[in-house]
């Protein structure tokens, strides 16, 4: 039976790191695309570094959060800093539909892969650049993690006690890194829909800071009309009685018709709704894996495969791009194509 997934037949080259880039590509995979993740032997996805990694092992294949996020992707380990590696990725892009990247601005240009050049060379390609500030503007080179953007995007200023400090979600959520995946994947699907009609690709410039502010649109409109926005603690603009209270040492969120516990990770993981839900699923080996935030009645909700080891698909992907076995062997001999990083685990 033909694959009827919405993105069946779509090939994604994934240069995405951590959550914002990598998990956007994972959502495309969940919609049926083939995703080929490319990392360099000297430039691994930083998610591969993890506390507890033993330098005597293939630690790079064992990072729980990396494997959780990147399940189901094919893996190629190719040095994009080397012109020979750059020539290979250009070959791979010939048959690709989408390129996802969230490098620091300018890195893609350093690889000889500037969006302008790629648009000229591959007019049907959708290039999704996910960045903290966008491709241009005076803050273009500002270094940020997700929670930095909660501050610079306006969310922190409105979050927290009305007479106390502004708050951020922090390390565990890095909210702008999460929501951008839900949005960027839709933007990419939309660009593919447009290409279906026009034959034209596009370079999508997706700023996480702008998305953070966009998700406060009504507050910005109110502010521009002269109403000063402020922190409202746990109340909402339509229900000033909403609050979080402590009872017998436990926090409860109280609204009209709805009183529920404030769960921590342990309570969440133990809850029946969570276990019946889709936020964490399991790969065919039973390993917990990043879940899927949507379901289609016509398709089973499942993770089709686990995380590939670094470079596991080097040979297959390059052969299918018509590189000869001799060319591939030369790349391996020169360390351009690899199955292990050039360094030990981060300390």
């Amino acid at each position: 039976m033909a694959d009827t997934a919405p993105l069946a037949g779509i090939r994604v080259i994934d240069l995405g790191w951590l959550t914002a880039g990598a998990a956007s590509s994972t959502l495309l995979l969940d919609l049926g695309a083939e995703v080929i993740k490319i990392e360099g032997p000297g430039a691994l996805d930083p998610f591969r570094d993890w506390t507890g990694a033993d330098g005597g092992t293939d630690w790079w294949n064992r990072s729980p959060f990396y494997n959780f996020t990147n399940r189901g992707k094919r893996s190629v380990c190719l040095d994009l800093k080397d012109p020979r590696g750059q020539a290979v990725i250009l070959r791979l892009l010939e048959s690709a539909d989408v390129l996802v990247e969230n490098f620091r601005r300018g890195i893609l240009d350093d690889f000889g892969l500037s969006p302008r050049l790629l648009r000229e060379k591959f007019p049907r390609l959708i290039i999704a650049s996910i960045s903290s500030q966008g491709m241009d503007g005076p803050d273009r080179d500002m270094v940020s993690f997700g929670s930095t953007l909660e501050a610079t995007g306006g969310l922190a200023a409105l979050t927290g006690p009305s007479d106390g400090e502004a708050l951020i979600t922090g390390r565990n959520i890095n909210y702008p890194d999460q929501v951008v995946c839900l949005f960027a994947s839709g933007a990419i699907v939309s660009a593919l829909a447009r290409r279906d009609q026009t034959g034209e690709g596009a370079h999508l410039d997706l700023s996480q800071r702008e998305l953070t502010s966009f998700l406060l649109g009504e507050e910005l409109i109110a502010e521009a009309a002269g109403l000063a926005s402020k922190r409202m603690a746990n109340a909402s603009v339509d229900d000033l009685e909403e609050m979080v209270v402590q009872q017998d040492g436990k926090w409860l969120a109280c609204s009209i018709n709805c009183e529920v516990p404030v769960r921590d990770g342990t309570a969440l993981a133990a809850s029946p709704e969570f276990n019946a839900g889709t936020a964490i699923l399991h790969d065919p080996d039973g390993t917990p894996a990043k879940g899927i935030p949507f379901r289609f009645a016509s398709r089973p909700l499942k993770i089709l495969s686990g995380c590939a080891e670094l470079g596991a698909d080097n040979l297959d992907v390059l052969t299918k791009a018509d590189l000869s076995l001799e060319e591939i062997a030369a790349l391996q001999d020169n360390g351009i194509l690899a199955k292990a990083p050039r360094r030990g685990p981060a300390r």
Partner: protein
Amino acid sequence: MTAPFQGKRVLDLSAFAKQKPHAIATAMASKILASLGAEVHRPLPPQGDPFDDWGPFLPDGQSALARFLLVGRTDSAAIAWQNDANFDAAIGDTACVMNIQARFRLRISVFGTGEDPPMTELGLLALSGVLDAVRAKDGTPYRLAGHQAAYAAGLAAFTTVAAGLRSRCVDLADVSLFDVNCWLNWKAAATVVLFGSAAAQRDREQRSDWRTMQARDGYVALVYMNKDWPALRDLIGDPRLLEPRFATQKSRGEHMQDLNMIMSEWFAQRTRSEITAAAQARRIPIGPVLSPSELLQNPQYKARRFMMPDGTPRIPILWDGVAEPWKTAEGALNG
């Protein structure tokens, strides 16, 4: 220039949703689809538009939420939407969507596949553990501002419907408000599932090293990875930070209170822009907490034409450098 969903007819049933999070998520998804060229119809119930009653309210009495979410809809007064079998997609809560004929139907519910107990956005943030991550110094959990719980589900709904429209499939899809919020908060649950509750507890104790710090003129977000510590330590330049108890991430976690006390003196003496400039020069990802009024004047946003004069932000996608290039012939004028 052709828009992605030009010619696609989408039914936005946000005005009929029985619960507010469902209504707001539906409207967010539909807003984005409308901006991408879909012909979005949004019928109203006889009693009027519930969004008109939801704040914040502008000086003219109009709802800022309605103004933000409902632009770009087609006037639906004239169409018999209930019997119209020519919609490419319909979005709404279970009761609405199950009675509609459309090729692709997306229903938004609390727990997925139509399970819908009474639920608020505060409740969703609490149940999914998002609230637990946002804590003040005294330990009280706080909601994320605005409508994040519903908007995040709206983004997931947008992506799902975009996929349905592109593939022209006949299907019924589900987006669960609870699942989406848990998906955002995956690391808390994954830490427990992968490493156990004890590890999650340790993680919790060390996690507050990302926080806001009081500056002379407001707050900054103090955000740094282990690799940034030497640069941060040297930036602050207090000899106490060289003590062995602050040498590793683990030991800093164990002495978090003292660490924050020492650092807070440095932050309190400087303005947000002084702190940000000094940190950015060392590539430490610290940034200022900016208010909406400051964002309206923000040079980055002005350079990228991110907001209209009335504060409305554009959809945060530029296509080859241009916002919604299909809207005007010149395109670039439409930033």
